């Protein structure tokens, strides 16, 4: 089977998401589609999967032009998709999720769940995926959930499988397993489209790499000859610095001291269990871990967004376990939250309003109950310049900015004052390569100025590059403290997966 996209153009109000895109894929090969967030990769795949109707262009399979009006058409044409956010019903079992839409049934539509189990087992055995058809999705690790998605696609006999950012949620060892599965698929005569923004992975697995920038295919490269920096330059449109530049840390006094912190949610599930650690002035401590191992809850407890069930959080020796977020903020804590749209910014407010959100009540910006907008606007102007926030003006709604610029607004607001402690969660998630470079340098600069910095990131490369000390979280516990200069990503990955390599170098 040969799949071709010919001249696909998809416009949204105000933007051209895909601009005359041409791509082709044969079964038996891996095409990697690489580009920054917002380059149009996901839109292109939504067009291919029948979720969007292209404004121009055709989808051609084996020389026949096809029009997809819904995912059902795409599935019928042999296209399968594993979405970045898994399309699994969390309360259903593996078998129920897999057969949804193509259920084996008897009279009156009675589900034949035994048959569904058998189908899951058959495919799982054939491709060595090791799935229990009766396991409930929400109890499964993400790596296993991804295999469920793959079984879904295989059950529908897809000839072309599209993976949208499949490695974003996986540990290093799961990524290796995933690549094995991809190879099996290809050798079984299927075609794979691998969407990613991680250069190394594209170079590792792809037969061909197509680079997308601002909706256009800017070139196709051969992974055997291309280099990372070359592809990065194609993605961004200018040369970029891919490594973090920093000197060794000069750690000072203890700033943050966390003792036996435990956090439970409303349903009584333990997310953080007896976690203790310290962060010193002038050092960056990184927390690595697969998403969902308690990092989110830990950060929320440290910043006051969630109540600690037990344990003590102290900043400069003062117990602030029961302080509210504003009190912590005023003690010199900055927070760059993992979800900028939900916790970091108010999308409907302007850039200037968002910049003053944490300080409008200071004397500098208010006079009794009246906000001094002149002072706030003046500060906004300064910060927009200083932090290189690309916005038409300070009155622009912050929600209309790109992810990278939204993140810069948060960084500007949080870092532009005297700080003792900066907590940054996923500081570069969904941020373009250019802004990543900038945000990283800001964080290092903050450290060099003597602030204690805590970085939480599921991007292992990022935490390893930034941190002076590295903690690994697994199932709510800190399972290792490592020196990032002395361990390999593979070793850290083992800790992230819950195993303990005895030969690993601990700090």
């Amino acid at each position, binding site marked *: 089977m040969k799949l071709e996209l010919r001249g696909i153009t998809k416009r949204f109000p105000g933007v051209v998401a895909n601009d005359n895109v041409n791509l082709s894929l044969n079964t038996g090969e891996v095409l990697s589609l690489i580009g920054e967030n917002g380059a149009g990769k996901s839109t292109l795949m*939504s067009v291919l*999967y029948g*979720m*969007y109707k292209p404004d121009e262009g055709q989808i051609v399979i084996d020389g026949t032009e096809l029009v997809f009006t*819904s*995912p*059902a058409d795409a*599935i019928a044409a042999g296209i399968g*998709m594993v*979405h970045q956010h898994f*399309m*699994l*019903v*969390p*309360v*259903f079992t593996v078998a*129920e*999720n897999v*057969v*949804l*839409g*193509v*259920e084996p*049934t008897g009279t*009156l*539509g*009675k*589900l034949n769940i035994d048959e569904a189990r058998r189908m899951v087992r058959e495919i799982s055995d054939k491709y060595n995926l090791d799935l229990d058809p009766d396991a409930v999705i929400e109890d499964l690790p993400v790596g296993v959930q991804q295999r469920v998605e793959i079984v*879904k696609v295989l059950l529908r006999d897809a000839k072309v499988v599209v993976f949208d950012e499949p490695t974003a949620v996986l540990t290093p060892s799961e990524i290796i397993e995933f690549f094995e599965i991809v190879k099996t698929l290809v050798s079984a005569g299927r075609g794979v489209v691998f969407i990613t923004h991680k250069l190394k992975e594209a170079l590792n697995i792809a037969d061909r790499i197509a680079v997308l920038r601002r909706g256009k295919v800017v070139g196709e490269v051969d992974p055997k000859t291309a280099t990372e920096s070359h592809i990065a330059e194609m993605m961004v449109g200018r040369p970029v610095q891919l490594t973090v530049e920093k000197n060794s840390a000069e750690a000072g006094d203890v700033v943050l001291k966390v003792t036996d912190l*435990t956090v*439970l*949610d*409303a*349903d*009584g*599930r*333990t997310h953080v269990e007896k976690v203790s650690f310290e962060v010193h002035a002038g050092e960056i401590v990184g927390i690595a871990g697969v998403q969902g191992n308690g990092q989110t809850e830990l950060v929320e407890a440290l910043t006051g967004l969630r*109540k600690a*069930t037990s344990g003590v959080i102290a900043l400069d020796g003062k117990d602030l376990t029961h302080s509210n977020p504003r009190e912590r903020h005023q003690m010199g804590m900055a927070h760059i939250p993992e979800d900028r749209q939900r916790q970091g910014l108010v999308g409907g407010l302007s850039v200037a309003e968002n910049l003053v959100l944490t300080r409008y009540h200071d004397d500098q910006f208010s006079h009794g109950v009246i906000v001094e907008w002149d002072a706030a606007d003046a500060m906004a102007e300064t910060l927009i310049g200083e932090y290189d926030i690309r916005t038409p003006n300070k009155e622009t709604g912050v929600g209309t900015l790109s992810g990278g610029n939204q993140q810069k607004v948060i960084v500007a607001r949080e870092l532009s004052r005297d700080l003792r402690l900066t907590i940054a969660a996923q500081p570069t998630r969904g941020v373009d390569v250019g802004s990543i470079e900038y945000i990283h340098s800001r964080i290092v600069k903050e450290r060099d100025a003597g602030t204690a910095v805590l970085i939480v990131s599921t991007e292992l490369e990022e935490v390893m590059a930034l941190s002076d000390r590295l903690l690994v979280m697994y199932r709510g516990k800190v399972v290792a403290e490592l020196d990032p200069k002395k361990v390999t990503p593979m070793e850290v990955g083992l800790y992230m997966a819950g195993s303990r390599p005895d030969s690993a170098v601990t700090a």
Partner: protein
Amino acid sequence: MNLAIETAPLLSNEQRKRARNVGFSLIFLALISAFFFSGRPGDAGFKLVDSFTLVLPSQPFARALAVLLGALGAVQLYRGFGKWTNVVLAISTGAFVVGFLAWATSGGSFNLTGMLQDTVTRSVPITLGAIAGILCERSGIINIAIEGQLLGGAFAGAVVGSLYGPWAGVLGAIVMGVALSALLAVFAIRFRVDQVIVGFAINFFSLGLTSFLSQRVLTEHPEYNIVKPFTPYAIPLLSDIPVIGVALFTQTYFVYISVIAVVLTTWFMYRTRWGLRTRAIGEYPQAAGTLGVDVIRLRYRNVWIAGAVAGLGGAWWPIGTVGRFDQNITSGRGFIALAAVIFGRWHPVGALTAALVFGLAEAIQLKMSNLDTGIPSEFLLMAPYIVTLIVVAGFVGRSRAPKAAGQAYDASK
């Protein structure tokens, strides 16, 4: 029990709070029993069958009850019942209700079997309304409009039933229910209007329209407002069982139909393709949509079926009981049905149980107004609901609504 080696499970702040609230509720009930229920001497007679009346000495019973509830409350506060909390709470509340009845009846007697029969009868519109709610919410549409659908069904049932007989009336009520739910479907699914707001609009529309028509048309043409209601049908053999026979098997068709509706909904929801897809689009419609399931069409269909069930429930008033329509005859039962959906955790059997609790509350309130208790009738109207509120607050701690309920589906997300 090997309690010694079990380590105490860690509890979150919310769980602790809830466990404490349950404890205090039990103590509260104990205090009422001790100082209030024991205030009236005399025996309470509960008539079960013509030949047998159960006699409870109300004062000693109230004291015993107070000690029991107090002890349970203390244990709950001290170490908690853990997973048995709900069972303890259910038994305690049941005992408290008996204590209340014993107090109210002391020195007299009343027909307990008749009250149970009344309980089952009155649970019918709540059960059917709740099933309508479940059918919608399980597929991701919040149905606040149950009240309006019941009311519309009651009106149509009365008018059509007066003209063409009760079975035609039932059919008319179903058609009316579907029509009102179609309105909800179009606004909520097609135009993605906030589902709660559409639901409320339909309730007011239905109330206004039926009130207007009943004042203008039915008062002038009373012949359109006389239905021959169904009479109870005693199921052979089963209805001869003492107490249960009267309470469960000597009822109108409505009771039997609503039990069948509960069984069918449960079976279809958990055993069929339709059910799997319905639950999928209520939890995570994108998952079903990306597999080629037509989310929009399935939601439309389920909202229509729900309307039919609610319309049927509305027919209960004219055709199952009084034989006529009055303004706002449903008086909020649709909202109670909505509570039953949540109380019953979006499961048809749970909803039936909840509906029976609410039915019991109504039946007790009716009985009490016949007994001389010295409590103002306004308070009697409230009392059963207060007890129910306590139960609901205790039980519904951890129930989980279908995740996508209330969210319009957009295929491109």
